[in-house]
């Protein structure tokens, strides 16, 4: 099961966080800082899977953006690794090739929307790119007209 999804920039500032298990608000900042430090301090050639406390972290770097996913130890790391790629490809398709911190900061609602189409309750519910984007495109079309 997925515990949380984080998007951070290279400085370690959180750009997006989504939790699927209850974590107190006051504890989130500390957890995020620790998790991000854990991933950022690793070299490029090191493995993308990290054992962290009683769960695991899977992270991937896209230019200046890190995506970190916290998972329980029963979850398959490779599938999550591919899920991150898929998520970024969907974002890439939606924002037509300009996924940057900027796009995420100024369209946070849409990024959350896309993430919610893919992951529900800590489980992967949809991976098809066009199906993920259908509701969002429909809403965009409606608000345009």
């Amino acid at each position, binding site marked *: 099961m997925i515990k949380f999804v984080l998007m951070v*920039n290279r400085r370690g*500032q959180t750009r997006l966080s989504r939790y699927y298990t209850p974590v107190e608000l006051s504890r989130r900042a500390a957890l995020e800082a620790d998790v991000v430090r854990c991933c950022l301090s690793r070299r490029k050639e090191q493995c993308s899977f990290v054992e962290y406390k009683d769960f695991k972290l899977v992270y991937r770097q896209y230019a*200046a953006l890190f995506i970190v996913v916290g998972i329980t130890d029963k979850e398959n790391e490779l599938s999550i690794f591919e899920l991150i790629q898929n998520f970024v490809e969907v974002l*890439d398709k939606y924002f037509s090739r300009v996924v*940057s*911190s900027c796009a995420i900061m*100024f369209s946070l609602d849409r990024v959350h929307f896309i993430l919610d189409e893919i992951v529900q309750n800590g489980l992967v519910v949809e991976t098809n790119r066009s199906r993920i984007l259908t509701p969002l495109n429909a809403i965009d079309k409606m*608000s345009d007209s």
Partner: protein
Amino acid sequence: MSTAEGNTDMDVPCVLVTSCDGRFPEEELIREILGTKTVPEPIRQENTVAWYPWTINNKYYTADVSLCAVPSTFQMSSEIAQSTQAFIAYFDSTTKDGLEKLQPWISVVEDLAPEVLILVCERVCENGVTRHEAQQWCLAHAFELVELNPLEQPDEEDDFPESTGVKRIVQALNANVWSSVEMKDGHNQGFGLMSSLVASRHNNPRSSQDSPSSSLPVEGALVNEESNHTEVHSPAAAAQEQSVVDAMTDLDIQELANLTSGDVDVDNFERLFTKLKEMKDKASSLPHEQRKVHAEKVGNVLRAELFMSHRWFVHKLKAYVSFVFCRWLKRSGWPSVVKKTRWTGYHLVKKAK
């Protein structure tokens, strides 16, 4: 957030640029950020501190900022401190103690806590400051490391190439919400329908204070409207009727939005259907034109809400139906065809060959 009124230098956020390498002046970095051939004339100069204007313009916003060259911590003034929202420091990576020269800035930066913090060098150096050292320093002080001329150029084949050098500095400066930011249209309103829902919820109490007559209680509105039917020819009455109907519809829509966006439970569902029936009855007593407008408004809200919830609902429904079916199978004498899984609780066992 908005300091657009008043155009003094104090209001313009500033990017503090400093260099701890005597051979590399701050102006050089500023020139590269501005992308000009020569260093432009500063807009302001006080002793060794110089301000250069810069307008950040991207897809989402425009913002006027100033690039402020400050040679050392001794030139810091409260004015610079107050306007600093980004900090860029250049250091000499060829000597071992390159990073130590930044030490005086650490306490200043910790005080100011700017949103953007960038550590710049020409290229990390095996004999001076190594990549590992620089990166550890950055992690400890929450900086981002940017090499102007990195040894390894980013892979062009990569789908998401990493930008380096000045390009990355400019990118990082773009990905910040400056106090002088002016959003471009279309990127701060969110979803049209969602925001209109939110707006109707926020605006309604205010509009009812402004003109109490336009938001009569629903019962009163109904009576009013019925009595208006006979005298619809008078323009004043028609206008009044319109406003009453509008207010009534707005109230209804507001209630509808509250019902659909709250926690999904059976009670809410029932109330939602009762409300819809009520609104339909009300609409049927309206003249044709108004009925159309009314239907459209209600339709918009429902469509927005359905889009938000139908996928979630279908997903839950499928899971629930299969769960109930499997449990029934198990309890009614075919436990061998179902097995427990972590996805839906139960799962049908595939037929053995």
